[in-house]
C-alpha cells in the first residue's frame, strides 16, 4: 500500500474519498467495501481504485448486480460486527435497495433496542451535470432525510470528502454518504494530518451580511460563485455548506439568517418536498421575526431529470441563485 508521504498535496475529490476509504480500512479490519465493479475496475468513477488489490477480494467485494442484495447482506454483516461500506453505482440505482434501507437499515437499531447497531455507510454518487443518460443524475437525498433512523451527509470538496468518509465509517449509525459526482475531478490541497470538526456539523464557508445562501454537495461551489459574482456589486452573501442533511445542524443557519434576514436554499433535487422545504419551514419557525422575506428555494424543477442536452437548464446555476437573491430583496 502506497504510504501517504506528503502531509499536504492537491488531490481530486474522488481521490480523496479513495484515500479516506483506504485509511478507514487500514484503521479497522472490520471495514469492508461492497458494490458493483468496485474491484478490478475500481468503480465506474475509480473511487475504489487499487483497494481490492491491496485488501483482497474478501474486503473489497464485487457483488452480484442487485442493490437490494448489497444492502440486505450489508445488514447481516453489520449484525455480525462488520462495517460495510456499500457503493451504489449511480443515484438512480438506489431504489431497488430502498426497501432494505427504509424498513431494515433505518429501523433495526430501534427494533433491537440498540442491540444491533447498523454500522453501514451507503456511498451514493449523486446529482447531474455530467451529460449522462436517464437515472444517472438523480438527487434522492430527501427520501432518506425523511426517514428516521438514517443519517445523511453530503460532501462538497476534497478535504471534507477525505475526512467525512472516515467519520461516516466510524459512526455507529447508518449513514447515507452523498458524493457530488460532477465535482469528483475538482482539486484541493489536502492535509491528512489535520482532522477538522465533527461529521454532523454545518459550516459557514463564506461570511456575508445581506443574504444567507444554503447549499450542499455540488451546489456549494455554485453558491460560492454566486457570492463572488455579486461581491463587485457590493452585495455580500453568506454561504453555508450544510454538510449534514439528517440530522440538520441549524444553529449556524439560524444565527446567520437572524443577521441577514434573508435566505435562499439551493439544491439540484426537485423543489417540491426537497430539502429546501424543511429548511424553509424550520427557519421560518425559528427566525420568524428576523425574516425580511420568505425563504426562497432554488431547486431542480418538479419534472423527471431531463435529457442531458437540456440539463443545464434544469440545474440551478449562478444566475438562478442570484435571481432568487434578488427576489428576496424585492420583498
Amino acid at each position, binding site marked *: 500500500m502506497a504510504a501517504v508521504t506528503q502531509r499536504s498535496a492537491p488531490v481530486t475529490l474522488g481521490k480523496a474519498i479513495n484515500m479516506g476509504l483506504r485509511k478507514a480500512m487500514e484503521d479497522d479490519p472490520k471495514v*469492508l467495501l461492497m458494490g458493483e465493479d468496485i474491484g478490478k475496475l475500481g468503480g465506474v468513477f475509480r473511487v475504489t481504485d487499487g483497494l481490492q488489490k491491496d485488501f483482497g477480494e*474478501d474486503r473489497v467485494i464485487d*457483488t*452480484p448486480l*442487485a442493490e*437490494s*442484495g448489497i*444492502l*440486505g*447482506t*450489508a*445488514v*447481516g*454483516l*453489520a*449484525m*455480525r*460486527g*462488520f462495517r*460495510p461500506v456499500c457503493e451504489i453505482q449511480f443515484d438512480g440505482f438506489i431504489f*431497488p435497495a430502498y*426497501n*432494505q434501507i427504509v*424498513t*431494515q437499515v433505518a*429501523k*433495526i*437499531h*430501534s*427494533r*433491537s*433496542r*440498540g*442491540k*444491533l*447497531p447498523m454500522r453501514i455507510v451507503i456511498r451514493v454518487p449523486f446529482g447531474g451535470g455530467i451529460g449522462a443518460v436517464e437515472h444517472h443524475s438523480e438527487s434522492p437525498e430527501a427520501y432518506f432525510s425523511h426517514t*428516521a*433512523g438514517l*443519517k445523511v451527509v453530503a460532501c462538497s470538496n476534497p478535504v471534507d470528502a477525505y475526512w467525512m468518509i472516515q467519520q461516516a465509517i466510524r*459512526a*455507529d*449509525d447508518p449513514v447515507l454518504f452523498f458524493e457530488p459526482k460532477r465535482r469528483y475531478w475538482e482539486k484541493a490541497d489536502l492535509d491528512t494530518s489535520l482532522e477538522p470538526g465533527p461529521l*454532523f456539523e454545518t459550516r459557514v464557508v463564506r461570511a456575508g451580511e445581506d443574504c444567507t445562501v444554503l447549499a450542499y454537495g455540488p451546489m456549494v461551489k455554485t453558491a460560492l460563485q454566486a457570492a463572488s459574482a455579486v461581491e463587485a456589486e457590493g452585495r455580500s452573501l453568506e454561504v453555508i455548506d450544510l454538510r449534514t442533511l439528517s*440530522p*440538520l*445542524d441549524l444553529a449556524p443557519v439560524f444565527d446567520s439568517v437572524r443577521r441577514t434576514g434573508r435566505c435562499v436554499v439551493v439544491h439540484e433535487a426537485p423543489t417540491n418536498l426537497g430539502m429546501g422545504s424543511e429548511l424553509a419551514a424550520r427557519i421560518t419557525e425559528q427566525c420568524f421575526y428576523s425574516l425580511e422575506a420568505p425563504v426562497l428555494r432554488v431547486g431542480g424543477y418538479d419534472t423527471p431529470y431531463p435529457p442531458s442536452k437540456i440539463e443545464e437548464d434544469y440545474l440551478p446555476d449562478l444566475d438562478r441563485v442570484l435571481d432568487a437573491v434578488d427576489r428576496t430583496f424585492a420583498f
Partner: protein
Amino acid sequence: MSSGDIGVSPGDSSFAEAGPELIQLLTPEGERVEHPDYAIDLSPEQLRAIYRDLALVRRVDVEATALQRQGELGIWASLLGQEGAQIGAGWALEANDMAFPTYREHGVAWCRNVDPLDIISLFRGCDNGSWDPIATMFNLYTVVIGAQCLHAVGYAMGMQRDGGNGATLAFFGDGATSQGDVNESFIWASVFAAPVVFFCQNNQYAISEPIEKQSRIPLFQRARGFGFPGVRVDGNDVLAVLAVTRKALEAARTGQGPTFIEAYTYRMGAHTTSDDPSRYRLASEMEAWKLKDPIERVRAYLIRSEQADAEFFAAVDAEGDQLAVRIRKGTVEMPDPDATSMFANVYAEQTPYLTDQAAEFAEYHASFASAGQEA
C-alpha cells in the same frame, strides 16, 4: 417410502402432492422408517425432550391465541401445525449458529431459550422484539416478507470472514419465495458459497393464497435454478426435519454452501388472529391434515416404542399448565412501555434534534400532568 403410503385418504390432494421426494423418518401413525440419506439416532431422553418441546410450544401458542381473544394481545400469529418443522429445525441448530426467523417461529425461539413472554410482548404491542438477538443467536422477528433472508446470507458471509465456525438458518414461508429479496439471497448464497441454510415452511398458504399462486412446481426445486441442493422434508415429522436440517447446516459449516429445505407442512390455524380462513379453504382439508399432526405421531412413537409412559405425558401436561399460568400472568401484568422510549435507540448516537423533540414531548406531557393536578 412413498408419499402414497402415509395414510392419507385419497381425496386429499394437498398431501399426496408432497410427492415421492418427501423425506420422512416417522409416519403419521408414529412408525419409525428409514431413509437412505438421512439417519438419526436419538436417545430416549432426547426423544422425550423433543416431545416436551413440541407440547410446550403448542401450549404457549394456544394460550397466546386465547390471550388475544381476550383482548390482551393486538394480534397473534399461530404456529399450530408447524411445531414439528420448528422444533426439528431448532434442535438442529448448534450454539454458534444464528437463526433468522420471520414472525411465526415461536418454536425455534423456544429452542433458542427465548422466553415466550418476550415473543408475546411484541404481539401485545409493547416492543418490536425484546430478546437479545446475539446472546440467544435468534434474530429479531422480521415482518417485511423475505428481508431476513439477505440478512442471513450477510451474516453467514461475516462468519466466513471472521472464522465464526457457524452457519445461519433463514426461515421463511411459501409465499415469501416470490419476493425478489429471497431470490437474491439464493444468488448471493450460491455465489459466495455462504454458510446458510434456507428453511422454507411451506404451510400451503400465504394468508389466503394457496401455494399455486406462488409456484407451478414444488418449491424445493427452486434451488436447482440457483445451483444448490433443495430437499423436501415432511415438515410434520420432527425427526426428519432435524436430520435434514442438521445435515444441511453441517454442509454449510464445512464450506459446501447453501441448501434449500422445504418443510412440507400445514397451517392448522388462521394466518393470524385477524384472519378468517373459512373464506378461502375447506374444513375437509384441515381434517385431512389433522391426521398428520406433528405431535401426535411422536407421542404414538414414544408409546409404541415404550420410551415414555403415561406418567411422562402427565408431567409434560402439568408443566404446560404451569407454563400457561406463567404466560397468562406475565402477559396481563406486563407494563406498558414508557412513551418516551420511542425516542430511545432511534440512533446509537442520539441527534440533538431528537433530543430536543424528546424534551418537548416530555414537557408537553408534563403540562397535562400538572393541568391534571390543578383540576
